[in-house]
């Protein structure tokens, strides 16, 4: 889309940027990737005039164009580089009118870069409730830009914004050429001589932030360093002085354009709803109680509510398979379709209810502004373990999926805090582990029993596994904190936004996006592995498979009917390629209580742990009792007999050993790939894989040896 007009949406976090984006573009949104970075790029189409569509690009929320963390770097890489494929034709800076000065700081920086800019004043009603009346016409004259008053949440003021944008696109207002704080002319000239013509402020941005800008190569970065040295220019000092200067200018403008209706001697500010709620939510005692209660409700709810649709999917897939087997001729192709493909697809679909529920909760917590409070009350505790209050979000999101969770660590400013968070996040039990937990808990924890007569024991066991993952993440973080050395120090300076009612449209979009990503991204891998597994489990080396039926009949002349075909099927599985793989690693996993069948599942689930249940269905539907009424995976596993002891295979020792193994093991290619992308080094994914797998093996070994 070369000739499409593109507008960048810029603003402080919580200024209403995403609301405006949703208002303007509706459902005409798409997520993609920025070239070279893994960050989600959100664009949408806005009909500016009848027949004239333009592209809106949503950029991450920032307080200043000088980045403090990785996610903030993206903004200067786009706005500072006119050659960037996403460089906008103009910008809309969304400003929270109730916090005008701080929001105008960013506006003035963007305008000085030489990008035609419209100022969209949001939350004017909030400002007026606080006693501030803004004369936006005067503000427009003072700032020399078009100003539009909007209410992003209610979608008011879009007409005025359209006019402002059309006018700005037509006239392409030039910025003021003067720098906020003058520097030596020779310095700017030197930069322009070496790196090309640009607005003075953009030249200065290049000079000060060249290390963070991908448009420059090593050689160019060195010449920037020479220029800094030659002119004795100190970026840090300049940026601070510039910020103070900008605030001075902004204060003068605001003084002239805003009337403060509050009487000067009203010392105490008005008590807002946010103040009242914060008295409880960040209270030294009740704050924790509420947070724990919310988490607990989340787990009990997900475990009980999600089971209904999950049982439907599970039963539906089993029925569909039986039905297909009934009407289709008995051939390898039918087998591949039913036991391979459909069993695999079923293994994907069964996650959907739980993922949807988890993302519903997480996105509600973020939407209402409560998540920032959690960071606030957890910072001190997290810091002891080498983490940061902001690590709470990745850790909680890790309950859904480690991939977006690791990507959300970008807002953590300190590299060491961020790295430790990335390394330990996969220990949080993600939704892919849930079906494994569900199946195994159902096998080893009695369903009827309750704790104190209230809590379902299975729910308690599940909650325990999540807690275990969380405490192991903290412990690992603490160890990593001792090992890793920090170059920079960690900090925690953060805005506590006001509480807001959740925008259910945002929640719905978030759930839709994550479920879709799961089905199509993870689903592809799971289905592919299921099919490959079916092939490996159905065929064996040489002609061994063909001879099995004969041999079984000879060895067990007394067997007939179902028993005979089961015996044949399990012998076949044992002699298949998959069986051979499983046998190969059996010595290594025997101490944990696992046999070669579980060995197959372990191997397949090293690429993606969610394959475990699918693998189990494939293995047991090939090698076990196929009885129409008990065809779910749970019942097949329950019926499995340990050939050595003659007792049920899945007893407490094996069940808990497997649960612990899956709780700690690093079995997700996507997570390792994300860690690689986020740390830009193979070292860290290898460390992550190594320490987690070792931990899983040792812990599972201990559990099995103690319980058996």
């Amino acid at each position, binding site marked *: 889309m070369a000739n499409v007009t593109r507008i960048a949406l810029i603003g402080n976090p919580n200024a209403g940027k995403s609301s405006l984006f949703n208002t303007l573009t509706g459902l005409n949104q798409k997520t993609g990737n920025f070239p070279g970075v893994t960050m989600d790029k959100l664009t949408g189409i806005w009909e500016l005039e009848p027949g004239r569509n333009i592209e809106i690009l949503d950029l991450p929320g920032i307080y200043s164009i000088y980045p403090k963390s990785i996610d903030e770097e993206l903004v200067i890489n786009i706005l500072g580089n006119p050659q960037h494929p996403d460089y906008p034709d103009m910008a809309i800076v969304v400003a929270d009118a109730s916090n005008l000065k*701080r929001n105008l700081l960013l506006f003035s920086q963007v305008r000085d870069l030489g990008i035609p800019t419209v100022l969209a004043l949001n939350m004017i009603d909030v400002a007026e409730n606080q006693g501030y009346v803004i004369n936006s016409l005067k503000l427009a004259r003072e700032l020399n830009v078009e100003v539009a008053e909007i209410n992003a949440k209610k979608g008011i003021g879009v007409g005025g914004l359209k006019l402002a944008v059309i006018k700005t696109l037509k006239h392409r207002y030039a910025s003021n050429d003067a720098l906020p704080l003058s520097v030596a002319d020779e310095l700017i000239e030197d930069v322009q001589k070496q790196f090309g013509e640009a607005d003075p402020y953009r030249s200065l941005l290049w000079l000060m932030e060249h290390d963070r800008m991908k448009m420059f190569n090593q050689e160019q970065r060195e010449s920037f360093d020479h220029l800094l040295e030659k002119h004795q220019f100190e970026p840090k000092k300049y940026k601070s002085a510039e910020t103070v200067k900008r605030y001075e200018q902004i204060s003068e403008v605001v003084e002239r354009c805003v009337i403060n209706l509050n009487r000067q001697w009203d010392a105490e500010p008005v008590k807002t709803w946010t103040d009242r709620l*914060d008295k409880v939510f960040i209270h030294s005692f009740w704050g924790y109680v509420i947070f724990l209660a919310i988490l607990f409700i989340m787990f009990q709810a997900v475990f009980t509510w999600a089971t209904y649709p999950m049982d439907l999917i599970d039963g539906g897939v089993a029925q569909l398979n039986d039905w297909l087997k009934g009407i289709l001729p008995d051939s390898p192709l039918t087998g591949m379709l039913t036991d391979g493909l459909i069993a695999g697809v079923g293994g994907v679909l069964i996650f959907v209810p739980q993922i949807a529920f988890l993302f519903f909760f997480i996105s509600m917590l973020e939407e209402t502004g409560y998540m920032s409070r959690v960071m*606030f009350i957890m910072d001190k505790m997290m810091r002891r373990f080498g983490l940061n209050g902001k690590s709470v979000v990745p850790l909680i999101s890790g309950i859904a999926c480690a991939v977006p969770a690791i990507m959300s660590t970008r807002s953590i400013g300190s590299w060491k805090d961020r790295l430790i968070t990335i390394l330990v996040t996969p220990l949080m039990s993600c939704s892919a582990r849930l079906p494994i937990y569900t199946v195994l808990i159902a096998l080893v924890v009695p369903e009827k029993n309750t704790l104190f007569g209230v809590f379902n024991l299975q729910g308690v066991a599940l909650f325990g596994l999540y807690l275990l993952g969380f405490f192991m993440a903290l412990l690992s973080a603490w160890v990593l904190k001792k090992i890793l050395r920090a170059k920079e120090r960690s900090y925690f300076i*953060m*805005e506590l936004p006001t509480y807001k009612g959740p925008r259910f449209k945002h929640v719905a979009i978030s759930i839709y996006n994550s479920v879709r990503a799961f089905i199509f991204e993870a689903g592809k891998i799971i289905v592919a592995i299921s099919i490959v597994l079916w092939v490996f489990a159905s065929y064996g080396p040489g002609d061994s498979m063909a001879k099995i039926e004969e041999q079984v009949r000879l060895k067990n002349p007394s067997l007939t009917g179902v028993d005979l075909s089961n015996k044949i099927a399990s012998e076949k599985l044992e002699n298949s390629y998959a069986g051979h793989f499983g046998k190969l690693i059996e010595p290594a996993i025997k101490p944990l209580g696992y046999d070669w069948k579980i060995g197959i599942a372990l191997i397949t689930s090293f690429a993606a742990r969610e394959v475990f249940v699918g693998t189990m269905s494939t293995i047991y539907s090939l090698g076990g009792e196929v009885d129409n009424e008990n065809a779910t995976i749970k019942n097949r596993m329950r019926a499995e007999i340990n050939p050595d002891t003659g007792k049920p295979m899945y007893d407490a020792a094996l069940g808990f050993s497997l649960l612990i193994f899956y709780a700690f093991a690093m079995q997700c290619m996507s997570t390792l790939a994300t860690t690689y992308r986020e740390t830009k080094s193979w070292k860290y994914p290898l460390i992550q894989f190594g320490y987690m797998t070792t931990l899983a093996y040792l812990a599972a070994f201990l559990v099995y040896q103690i319980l058996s």
Partner: protein
Amino acid sequence: MLTLADLRIGEHGEITGFTDELLSLKLLEMGCLPGTEVILTHHAPFGDPIALKVSGYTLTMRREEAATIQIKRK
């Protein structure tokens, strides 16, 4: 020297300067300018981090970060 970390809940102060160059830019950008009035509003459990009202909104920071902001009592 009095710093923001010395304030108790409900107390007012006026920012006079910064002792840490690295943090000062972030603090300035967040609206903690010399001459600005701040009110300490909350402590997290165990007294750290702290939350304060500055330029009409709530900002949180750790105690050690607050100790780099010099203030005078109002």
